[in-house]
């Protein structure tokens, strides 16, 4: 199954743990945005689109879909032109300004992943609002939740 960060908005309690974890893991810049509203909050991060507009718009082919691992960023190809940020439909791919602008985008903690570890936001989230398991337990939980189940 293609991995992506599944966000179950109804479970988010705006505790900011994912944001703080992401910021810590990635040198002081969180790649995940937490948008807080009066009665809800939404964590947003790269969705690892399968036909990603950012990848399609990158003139250098620096962003590619890697089978089973989400969108991979090939840093050596990047010219820091910023077109990918213009293409992202969700505004979650950003150019961090600086002498050499940097690309800030959730890569599902690829470095950890290579060691067999889950992304930090998934591990830290107390309410399981974040997971990588869209196909399995999350879908099952949603289908079986009382609101969806008119019996009983």
């Amino acid at each position, binding site marked *: 199954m293609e991995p992506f960060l599944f966000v179950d908005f109804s479970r988010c309690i705006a505790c900011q743990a994912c944001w703080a974890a992401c910021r810590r893991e990635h040198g002081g810049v969180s790649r995940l945005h937490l948008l807080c509203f009066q009665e809800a909050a939404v964590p*947003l991060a790269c969705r690892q689109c399968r036909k990603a507009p950012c990848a399609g718009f990158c003139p*250098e082919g620096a962003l590619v879909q890697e089978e089973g691992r989400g969108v991979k960023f090939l840093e050596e190809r990047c010219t820091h032109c910023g077109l990918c940020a213009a293409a992202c439909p969700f505004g*979650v791919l950003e150019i961090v300004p600086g002498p050499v602008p940097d690309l800030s985008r959730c890569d599902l903690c690829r470095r950890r992943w290579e060691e067999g570890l889950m992304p930090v936001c998934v591990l830290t989230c107390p309410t399981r609002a974040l997971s990588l398991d869209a196909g399995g337990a999350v879908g099952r939980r949603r289908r079986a939740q009382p609101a969806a189940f008119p019996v009983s």
Partner: protein
Amino acid sequence: MTVPELHQQIHVDPDRCLGCFACASACPEQRITWDDREGNRRFRAPAVCAGDCTRCRDACPADAVRLEPMGETAGRSWEPLSWSLPLARCRRCREPFTTQKILALLSRTLEATVGLSAGEADWPSCCPACRRDLESRRLLDAARWNR
């Protein structure tokens, strides 16, 4: 005896330039600069550059940079290059966020790749912050069922 320095003259075709900042990011001496002001993205670059570095040209996605080797500059003074492109404003917050050209290119790309015609979706003409806001509101709308 001093060895004459190699120089190259920089030509930029403003019609080809998209207004991205690949050349500025690429220049190892950060001599190409840009800023967004008064509705335009304004670029500045030296007309002449010493050495044989071609990074700005190589980085340009639109082939807008041309480098022409030349001999000594013979002490002539060269006016720096400057060119500008109109910015696009976010349709929600009215803040400029990228150039109109980049947005037009994006629109054509989306049409070609997913058949999304101009105006069919609201996000392409919004800035990244508004795209996040729009997206989170779209999703919350769905989540209200779950509470």
